[in-house]
């Protein structure tokens, strides 16, 4: 299996400072040890409630935020990854590990190498009204990535821009307009064009349809599907709209409070969720059919603060089947067959 993106035990903590000397008094553990592997050409869904660390995870993968620890591999050869993992597990933190990481691990890249990597992975933000600079012309918005990456300038840049605009369903007559002249759906198309103009391999879609209406949403989703085929893209689709994720993703991971609690292929996860949190989450999807029978699991309480996450399993204070072990021991993500991974003590044999 060839993986496009592999993330090993990624951690991103935001320090909380306090007191007279602004000393570190704690940390928001936004992403706390997430490992995923995204296959080439697939759409990987990442779902979870707001504040669970989905967006932070995406930003950290793109190195818009610097991770505290962990590794990110984009298109790295398997032997290298194996070697790095081996050295890590043996605690041989010597020059070999450092050298390999500097060459392959996106988490420690700098300068020119980082810029080159960023060309290959792009992000589409949630709200296009805020992610497009209102003072820039569409032409400038779209040529800027080309200039930054030294890919094209002048007439050739404009040519590429009009090509990509055409592909996302806007014509080049929109080149000399400002973002406010467009509707929400069109703005999101511009944001997509901006992400695709550097011909990336991997695109992070961070809730790209949450700001648009249902009828426009369908148009955008079709556009994503088409672009994936045409440009041979891999998507990491982040959303809390579970019904959209069901339709667009091949595999889905469920995140809760900075951790992945379950990961499986989409049909498997939606028909047979195992983790108690996933069960509650998927049962909460409103079904657009008044005759449908509903089995509801209503969660009590609220998501705990990521500053002091509960000890043991992070879900245990809200879990109905929590036992003694859940309070003390953190469950590991284990395979329960068919690549269905779940982090829950109930399923550890």
């Amino acid at each position: 299996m060839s993986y496009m993106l592999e993330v090993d035990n990624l951690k991103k903590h935001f320090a909380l400072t306090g007191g007279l000397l602004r000393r570190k008094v704690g940390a928001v553990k936004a992403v706390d040890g997430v490992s995923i592997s995204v296959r080439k050409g697939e759409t990987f869904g990442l779902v979870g409630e707001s504040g669970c660390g989905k967006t932070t995870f995406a930003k950290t993968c793109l190195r818009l935020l610097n991770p505290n620890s962990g590794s990110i591999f984009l298109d790295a050869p398997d032997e290298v990854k194996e070697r790095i993992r081996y050295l890590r597990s043996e605690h041989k933190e010597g020059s070999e590990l450092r050298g390999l990481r500097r060459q392959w691990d996106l988490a420690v890249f700098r300068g020119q190498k980082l810029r080159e990597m960023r060309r290959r992975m792009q992000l589409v933000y949630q709200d296009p009204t805020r992610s497009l600079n209102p003072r820039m012309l569409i032409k400038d918005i779209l040529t800027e990535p080309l200039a930054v990456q030294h890919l094209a300038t002048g007439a050739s840049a404009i040519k590429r821009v009009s090509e990509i605009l055409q592909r996302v369903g806007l014509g080049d007559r929109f080149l000399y307009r400002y973002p406010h002249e467009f509707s929400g759906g069109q703005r999101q198309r511009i944001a997509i064009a901006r992400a695709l103009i550097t011909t990336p391999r991997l695109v992070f879609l961070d809730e790209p349809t949450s700001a648009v209406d249902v009828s426009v949403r369908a148009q955008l989703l079709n556009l994503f599907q088409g672009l994936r085929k045409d440009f041979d893209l891999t998507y990491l689709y982040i959303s809390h709209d579970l019904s959209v994720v069901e339709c667009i993703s091949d595999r889905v991971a469920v995140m809760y409070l900075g951790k992945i609690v379950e990961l499986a292929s989409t049909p498997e996860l939606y028909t047979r969720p195992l983790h108690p949190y996933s069960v509650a989450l998927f049962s909460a999807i409103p079904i657009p059919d008044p005759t449908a029978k509903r089995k509801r699991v209503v969660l009590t309480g609220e998501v705990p603060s990521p500053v002091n996450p509960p000890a043991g399993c992070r879900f245990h204070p809200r879990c109905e089947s929590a036992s003694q072990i859940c309070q003390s021991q953190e469950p590991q993500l284990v395979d329960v067959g068919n690549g269905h991974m779940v982090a829950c003590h109930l399923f550890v044999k």
Partner: protein
Amino acid sequence: MSEERFLRIKDLDLRFYTYEGVVEALDKVNLHIKNGETIGVVGETGCGKSVTGLSELVLIPSPGRIEGGKVLLNRDGKWVNLLRQKDAFLRNVRGNEISMIFQDPKSALNPVYTVENQIGEAITHHRMEEMCKRVIDNSEKAKEELKRTDLSDKEKAKLRKNVLSNREKRFLERIIDYPEDTIARWASRIPVLNRFKKRLNKEVKKEVVRMLKDMRIPDPERVAEMYPHELSGGMAQRVVIAMGLCCNPSMLIADEPTTNLDVTVQLQILTLIKELKKEYGTTIQYITHDMGVVAEMCDRVAVMYAGNVVELADVFEVFKNPLHPYTRALLECIPRPGAEFKSIEGFVPSLISPPEGCRFNDRCPFAMDKCVSVKPEFVAAKAGHQVLCHLYTGEAK
């Protein structure tokens, strides 16, 4: 559930006078709401869902003007046109008979007042009389209790705190007789005389805490003293619902109350609204764009498009047997696994110069010549199923 109609909107026209031109936000909207039902209003952004809710409370913001039509409220069998009433009358309707909860709970709450203050404001406005009576009752009860001989000193001291002095009682009675009594109002500002006001405030706080408890908020005493920024999204929405329900309104207009919330929190809120509906028997108008939520919550559905109610029917009927082409298209937009995503061709028309005739004609697959020129009538295609479309005017009764 009685079939009696609670509110009727008749041929409502609403226009916004903006720099770009006149926006015809509502165009001959017809809607009736039955007593005790949950009616869903669905549609896309800008179709006029929210302003319909606002016109029911006559709360249209400034460049907007209601140009025609009626909003009729059933008051003990008599129809009252709210658009013709004075402000004082409307103030009594808003919050007391019809109340509204808004989409974004964080911006609906005032950041500089505590929860207790904000909910309490509605209670002091609409339920002053009841609160005064409660304070007096408590005092009477305490007096009765004090007559018993087997009380310890501590208990006696506690009960004495509840006993009103004659002066306090007089002020409270003045308020019961006439809520805006000038003397009582002045007295409430003078240090020694204002003790009755403090007792009243205590009673209001008790009521607020009771309300919050009803909203299944854990530790309501603590939450009552919080400021909105200390609340999570779900909690803030519960507070807003508490504010909406604190005066026991006959109808609650819920304007996308769960749109910004996560699904699990949404489920909590929807369950809460359902339970409260059973408890209080409130009529609910649920404004949303989520078909899933409609299927879950509503008895009847009104589908809106570009300032028109295009279809109004039973929820089962709308989902099983949608008549208007727009409703059909909208239902097809719901993503289903395995199937291709369907969308509606074209764009929502600008309401500054909406299409002649039927407003859906340029996107409608069944459009005829008549649709471009003649405005369709809102007719009953079947019993209890009204639709605004030329396709059904022929067969109509």
